[in-house]
Every structure is written in C-alpha cells, then in structure tokens.
C-alpha cells in the first residue's frame, strides 16, 4: 500500500490580488480520511486547487508524504499520487467512458486489470465503455469521476463536493464506494462537502472552514459531531 499523509504548513493563497486562505495549517495522517465542511465561498475549493498546484502559494509549504510539492506543476503532483476530482468541468464530455478512465493512467496496459478491480463497485460501466461521458446522467458522471480517481491507485484522493445535485440512492452508492476503497487500500482522503451526513459517514475526522481559516475540528464518529457541524452551517 502506498499510503502517504498530506501536510499543509501556514499556507496562504488566493486569486490575483485577493487572499482566500490565510496561514492555514492542516495535517492528514497516512490512511486518514478528513472531511472539510463549511459554507460556500469559505475557501474549500481554493484549498484543493492550491494543493493541486493550480494556484500559486503566497506563503507556506505543502508536503505529500515526505516530499515538498509546494512549487510543483499540477501534472507532477498528479503523478506523485494525488487524484483530484474537481467540482465542475471534471470530465471530458466529448470522450468515451473508456477514454476518460484511461487518461489518468500512466501505462495503458494496466487498464484491464485495474478496471476489473473496481468493477464490483461500479458495475454500471462495464457494458458501456464506448458511451460518451456527456450522455451520462449526473449521478453516473460523478460515479465515473470516482472510478477514474480510484483506477489511478492514488496515495491521496481529493474530492470537491462530489455529492452535489445527486439523489440519495446515488449518494449512498458513492459512500459505499469510498468506504470500500478505504477498506481495500486505506487511501488517504480529503473530502470537501456540503452534505454533512455523507461526509461524516465516510470520514474519520471533520474540519470546519470559515473565511479561509479552520474554526472547528473533531472526530466524525462521535455522537455530537453532526450537531457541532450544523451549528457552523446554520443559515
């Protein structure tokens, strides 16, 4: 198992002149699943984009396992073992399911083997590999996103609101898939979510982000966790 932890040290970043994350520090142990919750516009997506190298850091460092990835380009970070599922425009809608799945792989040859591995959890794709990703339903597209990430056998998975706009039954399937992955390979996960029950079901620990800073954290499995989280999200 290639587990690795993710460490952010006093990271400051934002878009152009603005600062969204201020001196943010966050440590995820190898194999741990952490969920980052918070209202919109608080900097959650910005955090993932910063980790992935899309946004320049104005301060601080980020480490994957022991390696400093602060200055690396997104494709290098992906190759080092981080799989990122963005919130929008995360699939090639004009390419087939098969193409979408294999684009994340370094070697073509492992496609068959890896697909067979994840097949039990994603049975719906087997007979539809040639279908265009754009014609899938919303739920199927999110499943495809996750399948692609899993097939990359990453050390760390970053998910940005994967349950957005999905029906409860699909959300259940996603949760099952993530739990299966954790059981099989103990992959480290950082999950951004608005759907609190889903997030707390899958994660070990939760963090609440507000105005670019962490304001609360705790064990996701403890009884009062939902209440605490909702108190921050209260409309």
């Amino acid at each position, binding site marked *: 198992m290639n587990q690795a932890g993710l460490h952010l040290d006093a990271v400051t970043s934002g878009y152009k002149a603005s600062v969204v994350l201020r001196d943010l520090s966050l440590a995820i142990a190898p194999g741990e699943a952490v969920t980052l919750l918070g209202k919109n516009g608080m900097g959650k997506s910005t955090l993932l984009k910063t980790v992935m190298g899309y946004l320049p850091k104005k301060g601080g460092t980020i480490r994957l396992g022991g390696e400093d990835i602060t200055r690396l*380009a997104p*494709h290098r970070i992906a*190759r080092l073992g981080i799989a990122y599922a963005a919130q929008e*425009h995360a699939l090639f809608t004009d*390419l087939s399911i098969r*193409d979408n799945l294999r*684009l994340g792989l370094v070697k073509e040859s492992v496609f068959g083997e890896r697909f067979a591995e994840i097949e039990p959890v994603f049975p719906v794709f087997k007979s539809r590999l040639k279908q265009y990703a754009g014609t899938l339903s919303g739920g199927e597209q999110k499943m495809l996103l996750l399948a*692609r990430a899993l097939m*990359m056998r990453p050390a760390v998975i970053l998910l940005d609101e994967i349950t957005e706009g999905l029906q409860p039954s699909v959300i259940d399937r996603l949760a099952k898939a993530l739990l299966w992955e954790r059981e099989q390979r103990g992959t480290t996960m950082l999950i951004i979510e608005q759907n609190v029950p889903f997030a707390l079901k899958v994660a070990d620990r939760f963090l609440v982000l507000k105005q670019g800073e962490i304001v609360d954290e705790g064990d996701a499995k403890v009884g009062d966790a939902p209440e605490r989280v909702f108190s921050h999200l209260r409309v």
Partner: protein
Amino acid sequence: MVLLLDLLTTAAMLFVVTAGLMMIFGVMKIVNFAHGALLTLGGYASYVTTQLKLDPWLSWPLALIAGVMVGMVVEWLIVKPLYKRPLDAILATWGLGIVIGQLIVMGFGREVQFVDSPLSGTWSIAGVDYSAYRLLLVPVAVALCLLLTGLLNGTRFGIRTRAVIMNEALASGLGIHSGWVRFVTFSLGAGLGTLAGTMITPLSSVDPNMGMPWLVSAFMLVMVSGHSMPSLMLTCVVFGACQVLVSTYASPVLGGLTIAVLAAVTLRIRPKGFAHG
C-alpha cells in the same frame, strides 16, 4: 471533368498545406505565422534534392525532418515564452518567418528555381489527360487526413493531445504534461508544413516568397473549419471549389482572393465557422 479534377486537386493541395497549421492552432490556439516560411523551406528541400541529383521522393522525408527540427527550436525559444501573449506570438513567428526567408535568400539567392518532379507525365482519367503528380496529391491528402485522424483518435499521444485541447487544466490534473504535448504538437505541425511545401513545389516553382500566398488562405481555412481533420478536409473542399469556380469563370485574380474574402464573411456571420455549435 477537368473542372472536377481541378477542384479535387486544389482541395487536396489546400488540405496538405493547412493540416500542419491546424494541428498547432487547435492545440495551442495560436496561429503560427512562420508557416509560410516553413512551406518555403520545404520547397527548398526539394530544390536541394534536385541539385544533389538525388531521387526526388527523398525530399519528402528530408523536408519532414528539417521541419520538425526547426519546429522544436522555435517552440522552445519563441513560442513557449509567449504562451501568455498570443498576439505577440503571432508577431514573433512572423518575424521568424522573415528571418528564415532572409537566410534562404542568403543561401540560395532570389531567383525562381525549378525542381524535378517525383512523378512526371500525365494520367488518363475518364478520357482526360491530367498531370499525374497533381492527381497523386488527392490520395496523398486523403491518406494524410486518415493518418492524422488516426493519430489523434487512436494513439495515446493523440488522446492526450485532444484532452489538452478540450480542457488543459483537467488534463494537467490527470498527470498529462501539457507543455510537452504543446512541444510535440508544434514540432509535428511545423514538420507537416515543410512537408507540404515540398509536396506542392513540383507543381509550380521555388522562390523565397512562395509560401506567402498560401499563408493567408491557410489561416482563413483554419479559422473557419471546426476542430477536426475531417472538418478541415470538408472546409478545404468547399472553399477550394469556390476558388476554382471563381478562377475559371471570373478571373484568376479574383479566384486567388475568394478564400480569404469568403472566409472573412463566413466568420463574421457565424463566428464558429463550420464547428458544431
């Protein structure tokens, strides 16, 4: 019949000339203004082959290699630093075209030269005698289209290139080195340009400015056509036909202008050109 053959062969020539530009424009969204100079370079590859009394067919691989090498240097030194300044990239490649042109003049002189054709004589089609070499370009263009489509759709490199075209950020996030894809695409596109130059030379002549008239037509075609090789082929057939018809029935001068004018008006009315809406 002759008209039909003119039409087909013109479309073929246009496709061959434009394919390389299309690769670069599609992936990098810049118009390589050095394309004309690359065409000229290819022409002189033919000339060199003729002067060295080598088999004329050899000019094709020679041109391709020369073009790829020049492309690699250009991408690295000029195009990459100007990635964020696309209008300046146009200018820089234009300037480069001038430099290449001057070097050619310094090396070969200004005179118009003629080259040996790999295939001479005529073929008889439906009772009409037509230049064999010109006819040859039609299957060559088709083969090129198929080859490039296969490359882009079938190979690993091709699919990565298409991924970068569709969504560069997403492609990067999946581990695809978009800078590398751009480098390879540009070099390949440049090589195709030079190859095209050597292919069309036997039909006319070689001089330091031969690439220029093709340049503007090629741009307009690239801007109008959609983003795939088959759609480029279609565009070349349609516009090539118009050019031939105008040349034949109105005047050759107006014919030379047809593509540019038609394309400008098409784009003004329908900014996406022939691409799917």
